[in-house]
């Protein structure tokens, strides 16, 4: 059974996104874990360019490749989906 992503991992992801996109003026706590990162509704509202930036930042930081566009799209839907993907990948590698 998959491990549940930790709060620390989610905060790390939020910081990575904020650093990558040069976002200031909000704290990680203000970003909702479940709300979509695209299309409004979250403290962060991102577009497709941001999505590509985030995918590449995740690939670099966690040393993995998200080759499939559909997978990429579903992974970066929310903080929770990114965290769940990373936990699954870490489990596969260990």
């Amino acid at each position, binding site marked *: 059974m998959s491990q549940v992503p930790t709060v620390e991992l989610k905060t790390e992801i939020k910081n990575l996104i904020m650093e990558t996109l040069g976002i200031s003026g909000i704290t990680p706590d203000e970003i909702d874990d479940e709300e979509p990162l*695209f*299309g409004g509704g979250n403290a962060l509202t991102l*577009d*497709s*360019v941001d999505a*590509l*930036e985030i995918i*590449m930042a995740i690939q670099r930081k966690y040393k993995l*490749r998200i*080759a*499939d*566009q*559909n997978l990429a*799209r*579903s992974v970066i839907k929310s903080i929770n989906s990114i965290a769940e993907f990373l936990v699954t990948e870490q489990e596969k590698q260990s």
Partner: protein
Amino acid sequence: MRKLRGGSQETENSVMIIEDYHHKMAAHCESGSITSLLNHAGMTITEPMVFGISSGIFFGYFHKMKSFAFPTFIVRNKPGQMRKNLHKRTGVRFYSKDFRNIDSGQIALDNLVLSGIPTATQVDMFYLDYVPSWERVHINVHFLVVIGKEDDLYKVSDSYFPNVVDLPVGSMNKARFAQGSMSPKGFLFYPEFVPPSFDYEKAIRKGIKKACFNMLCIPIPFLGIKGIRLFAKKITDWPSMARDTEHLSHEVMKINILLEDQGTGGAGFRFMYATFLQQASEMINKPELKALARELMEIGDGWREFSLFAARIGKNRDLGPDKFKQMSELLYQRADKEEDFFKRLSKTIK
């Protein structure tokens, strides 16, 4: 295999859902639709194998063509070519048709679906109600599979979405008969014959040889590696061809859309071809293909870097000559890498 049934059929209030159709997501809409339809028809084949056998990997740059208002490029073979190549190499035969008007197009699609034949159709993504508004753009060459109809709603298997979705008849008609470059004209297809078996090794080898030929040897200056180099040379002309900064920014952002955002793109197609080489390596017992697959993954990463660079400068309106020179250099690097890769792939498969 089931065949097309002629004649029109009363479709109002008719209900048909092809329950045994297995919806799944795919890396690319056309290869995904083909694979899904073939799997439904009883053929065991993966999407990367469809892409590889049909020599889907390609490049073409179109600087000045009547049908395009601004330079554009393709990163895979033209729509329809996958089916033609697949037919030549595996014996699969597809029925396909386009239509002059909406009524005949709808009747044909309804007849097929109501007869229990899952049918792929070409659409403009913009009219697909189930696509979130922020992802909707006018792309006339999207493929989806219609697997049912319930009153005024089609049941759609769109490989970009995790579940089967509904689409009203009116929206489907708009999407199938959208105007503009490469307009779909209601185009539809489905496999009408699937051979019980075929020679995988022969098909794989032919597919790879043709892909190498297309990338290295086509004597046309805007296709294959030559096309990437032409793109590298001509992209510095883009600022003088655009109406204004807004237009230039839009066209530069489209590089990202073509490469990454909609459709599998330069990177994604390279990743899919790499997966094909991995699978082929095992099927024809050629371990060298596995090493080449790893290299192609890195080449795909390079395309993604290029795409991101274009997206960044387009979004920030940072469109000075130095940026176009940088894009040109990145493209020359892609050309060199791909030329080296395909030359070695060609030698490996001889």
